[in-house]
């Protein structure tokens, strides 16, 4: 059971990253969190992104949730918005895929093609 003091310390540490909710300039990672997403396993994916961002101390990136994106069979879905670039939609995301997406796409600007919706649709024609 954490004391208020310990919670305050955690709050100060995460304040910088949470402040970015108001900042439009940074990267945005949006996880689908409607009934379809939750049933498919989006909760650990969202928390996975938050943990990974915090672990790597990535600045200018916020993680948020959205409702049903529209293609429920491909949930959990994650959209990555980088300023100046087209959004990338990842489908059937699992907590194990989070590391690669953060490392290769968020940090190194190289979307993980085989996790994207385009690749998935082409493969499952």
């Amino acid at each position, binding site marked *: 059971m954490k004391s208020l003091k310990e*919670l305050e310390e955690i709050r100060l540490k995460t304040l910088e990253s*949470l402040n970015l909710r108001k900042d439009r300039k940074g990267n945005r990672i949006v996880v689908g969190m*409607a*009934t379809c997403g939750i*049933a498919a396993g989006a909760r650990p994916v969202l928390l996975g992104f938050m943990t990974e961002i915090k672990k790597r101390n990535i600045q200018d990136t916020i993680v948020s949730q959205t409702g049903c994106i529209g293609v429920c069979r491909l949930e959990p879905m994650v959209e990555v918005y980088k300023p100046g670039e087209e959004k990338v939609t990842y489908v059937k995301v699992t907590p194990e895929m989070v590391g690669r997406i953060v490392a290769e796409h968020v940090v190194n600007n190289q979307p993980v093609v085989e996790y994207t919706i385009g690749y998935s649709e082409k493969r499952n024609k």
Partner: protein
Amino acid sequence: MKEISLHILDIAQNSISANSRNIEIHIIEVDKDNLLEVTIMDDGKGIAPELLHKISDPFITTRITRRVGLGISMYKAGIELCNGSFCITSEVGKGTCVIAKYPLLHIDRPPLGNISETILTLVVCNPDINFKYYHKVNKNYFLFDTKEIKKK
């Protein structure tokens, strides 16, 4: 859904969409009464009586992208499958309250699951909403109130 905590996350999303400022989640477990009671209440815009009447119908939804809303239907179905009871009350302009009562020991009752992940997700993704999580197991209870934290 495999855990009750995932349903809680889902129903709380409805509360968030209803422009709630305060959402309370109460979980009460009483061994001697074989009861697990889950209450989710909010102070959002509420549901009109005509809609409330048919709310557990999967084809009733406020979504505009499609004509199916499964959150409440699936929650209610899961509750009734293990002989529990589901109740939803609401008043327009005041808020909504969803109460699920499960038989604690029923073989088909889903586990409560990772409730802390659910609370964490709700609190971190909605910094402008106050959450109160109260969990009582027999005589012991745990209370997490974001208002206490925001005071500091």
